[in-house]
């Protein structure tokens, strides 16, 4: 057997209390397409970032051509022929294509920046691969698929021997995926070695020679793609599937929200949620699973009334007015908190209309102070002073701020997205207890989570989203119905 060109040996990496990778070994052979598979949080991206020099491992070593190497930066990795193509492109939209291509050569710039000559090689490679590239076009005007080509060309032009592609198909349409795979195969035939992150099993089986599966930061299996099928891979990714809880508590059959043929568009006008229907009952925790970016956030925002409904309808049985809705958004830094504002102010977000806290247009500072103190005690948020900026809190306590203020609204419907992401076990436990208690109190909860264990533990039943539609179970969501 040939020796591997590039090996990650027993790599471990932790972020605070979270072990992103523990003792993972992946070997890349010359001329091979190696797919790294795993659910969200399996550690794929961390591994890629280590391979490409963005992160340094806590333990373990990288071996290039059987010599140990340490990349001090991504530039160092690039010098040794290891190039990463990011999921979020590192292109300057205002630049012309050739300027972006030349940018890839910047670390070798010595005297003058002659864009044309520097881009020439990339353009040659493009022709060679059968890609039409207009070096004069403004990069921002190109389609996403074309931009990805520029990104790949940038990597190839610097004579990369090893290409790391981070979820390259996530942004592409079916035809573009086909073309990308053709090029990946062509590159492999020319002796390039390619690492590919993916979570669509069908695609992995179509392109990869070898597959490594990670689960929660641990190596699970490695196999030649020809020797496995999608079902086997899904099992490896997911592990032993604990049966979803039967509703242990009596869930009322009183419907609170009926969703019919709901279609929702994403930020770029694409169809993110494709005519889904379901009913959410009082006291029920309804889980929405699946891999990130399959319409979960858009659906959640539509349920909250934050995103317009393209077609279909939401109805609230037995109500003439809109029910009280509360939202625990996915990204507390982005959407949940104003980090520079005080803990008090952040607790108040969404609650300013409460007649107990406001008098007409005015706020009642003393009452708010007392109320916030009570909330802090009730949810055991560990704070210094309530006037401190919320950024002074730990992640778990920040999340408690978001959760407590949502529950304090005494909502009829609670929409929750990944409520425990990034939290340690204890904080996650507290959040789970809060959700469970409010369900028992009759709140209807829509729980969006990419963490399957969370759904298994909390949800009375779960739906799985793939491509904006519901799949029967997780495996069909993963395999896209191919298994």
């Amino acid at each position, binding site marked *: 057997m040939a020796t591997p060109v590039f090996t990650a040996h027993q790599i471990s990496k932790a972020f605070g209390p979270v072990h992103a990778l523990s003792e993972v070994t992946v070997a890349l052979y010359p001329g091979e397409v190696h797919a790294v598979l795993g659910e969200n949080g399996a550690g794929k991206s961390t591994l890629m970032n280590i391979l490409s020099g963005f992160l340094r491992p806590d333990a373990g070593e990288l071996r290039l051509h059987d010599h140990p190497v340490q990349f001090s930066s991504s530039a160092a990795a690039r010098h040794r022929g290891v190039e990463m193509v990011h999921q979020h492109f590192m292109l300057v939209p205002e630049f012309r294509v050739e300027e972006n291509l030349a940018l890839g050569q910047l670390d070798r710039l010595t005297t003058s920046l002659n864009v044309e000559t520097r881009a020439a090689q990339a353009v040659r490679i493009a022709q060679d691969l059968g890609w039409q590239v207009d070096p004069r076009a403004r990069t921002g005007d190109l389609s996403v698929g074309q931009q990805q080509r520029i990104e790949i060309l940038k990597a190839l032009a610097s004579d990369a021997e090893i290409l790391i592609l981070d979820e390259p198909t996530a942004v592409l349409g079916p035809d573009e995926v086909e073309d990308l795979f053709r090029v990946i195969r062509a590159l492999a035939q020319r002796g390039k070695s390619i690492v590919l992150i993916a979570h669509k099993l069908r695609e992995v089986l179509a392109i990869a020679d070898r597959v490594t599966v990670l689960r929660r930061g641990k190596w699970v299996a490695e196999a030649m793609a020809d020797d496995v099928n999608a079902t086997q891979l899904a099992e490896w990714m997911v592990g032993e599937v604990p049966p979803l809880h039967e509703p242990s508590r009596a869930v009322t059959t009183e419907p609170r929200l009926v969703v019919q043929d709901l279609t929702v568009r994403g930020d770029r006008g694409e169809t993110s949620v494709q005519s889904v229907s379901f009913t959410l009952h009082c006291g029920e925790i309804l889980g929405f699973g699946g891999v990130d970016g399959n319409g979960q956030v858009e659906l959640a925002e539509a349920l909250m009334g934050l995103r317009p409904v393209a077609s279909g309808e939401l109805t609230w049985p037995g109500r003439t007015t809109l029910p009280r809705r509360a939202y625990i958004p996915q990204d507390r830094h*982005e959407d949940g908190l*104003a980090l520079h504002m005080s803990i008090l102010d952040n607790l108040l977000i969404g609650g300013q209309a409460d007649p107990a806290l406001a008098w007409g247009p005015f*706020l009642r500072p003393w009452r708010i102070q007392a109320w916030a103190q009570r909330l802090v005690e009730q949810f055991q948020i560990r704070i210094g002073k309530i006037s401190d900026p919320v950024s002074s809190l730990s992640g778990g306590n920040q999340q408690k701020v978001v959760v407590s203020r949502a529950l304090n609204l005494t909502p009829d419907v609670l929409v929750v997205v990944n409520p425990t992401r990034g939290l340690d076990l204890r904080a996650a436990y507290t959040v789970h207890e809060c959700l469970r208690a409010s369900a028992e109190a009759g709140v209807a909860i829509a729980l969006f989570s990419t963490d399957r264990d969370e759904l298994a533990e909390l949800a009375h039943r779960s739906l799985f989203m793939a491509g904006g539609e519901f799949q029967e179970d997780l495996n069909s969501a993963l395999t896209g119905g191919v298994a």
Partner: protein
Amino acid sequence: MRLAGLALGRGAVIAFGLMGILVLTLAAFRLPIGDSLRLITQGAFGSEVGIARTLVKSTPLMLAGLGIVVAWRAGMFNIGGEGQFVLGALTGATLFRLAPHVPPVVLNPLILVASVLGGAVYAGLAGWLQVRRGVSVVISTILLNFIAIQMLDWAVAGPLQQAKGQLPMTERLPEAAMLLRFNRQTDLHSGVILAWIAAGLVFVFLYLTRRGFQLRLVGENPSAARVAGLAVGARQVGAMALSGGLCGLAGGVEYTALAGQLGTGFAQQWGFLAIPVALLGGLHPLGVIPSATIFGALFAGSENLARFTPTGSTLVYVIQAAAVLGYLLLNELRERRAKLAEGAA
């Protein structure tokens, strides 16, 4: 209590810093420091007239500074205080032109309301351009400043020019339509009190009302504001309008308090100076009161100095620039220290 202590400590730092900058500036201009400081202090506080001048000079700074605070708190970097100031006064003067025979008692409040509206519309336009058309409010307000000044120059030499006389000036307001003056010796006028009241009202609005809270939330994290169900764009336009209204009011007060007529020289950069005033006031409405007063005193004082030296009010601009740079430096240092402390924890 703690808050007061904190504000006091901060105030002391700023006061000492300004003093240091003042001394350095005097030294740079090769002025005798002791004598110059005495002249400045005399001019600003040495007599009833001096104190009045300080207060009068601080008034447009305070009102426009409050305007800047409101916009910046909402995350809208309004650089157009000058244009809004000019347009406010211009709207007031237009009103006077169109309805010169309104009883003076009503005329004055009407002119002030008109100047608020003029400034509000002008700034609201810039806000709308950003929210709807993606034009940075920084760029548009800077450009709108130039347009406003050109409009002033054109109007006072054209449609608004006084009937008799050759000068590019508007008709003088009747004395009864001017803001109340407290005595004949000084320029002290009721607009000074108006500015202080405005500071209190802006404080109440920003910190004690729901709308104000929402405005600050929009400024701190528009994304969280959206998720909390607020129409972020509308709030931003609203904040700009309020900001422009205050800057416009500054123009209206200046117009109806002092000269009673507009000329090409009416734009005295108060709208620009309001930005450093707001920054040094910590972007807080109550901070603007001392900050505007300090700069008012510097203007009054350096006018006195200018009678004996050739520097004139140049000094004020230099000091203000140095003070803002010093303030930014201070903030930067504080942030770095905070980050270091965070890293150590």
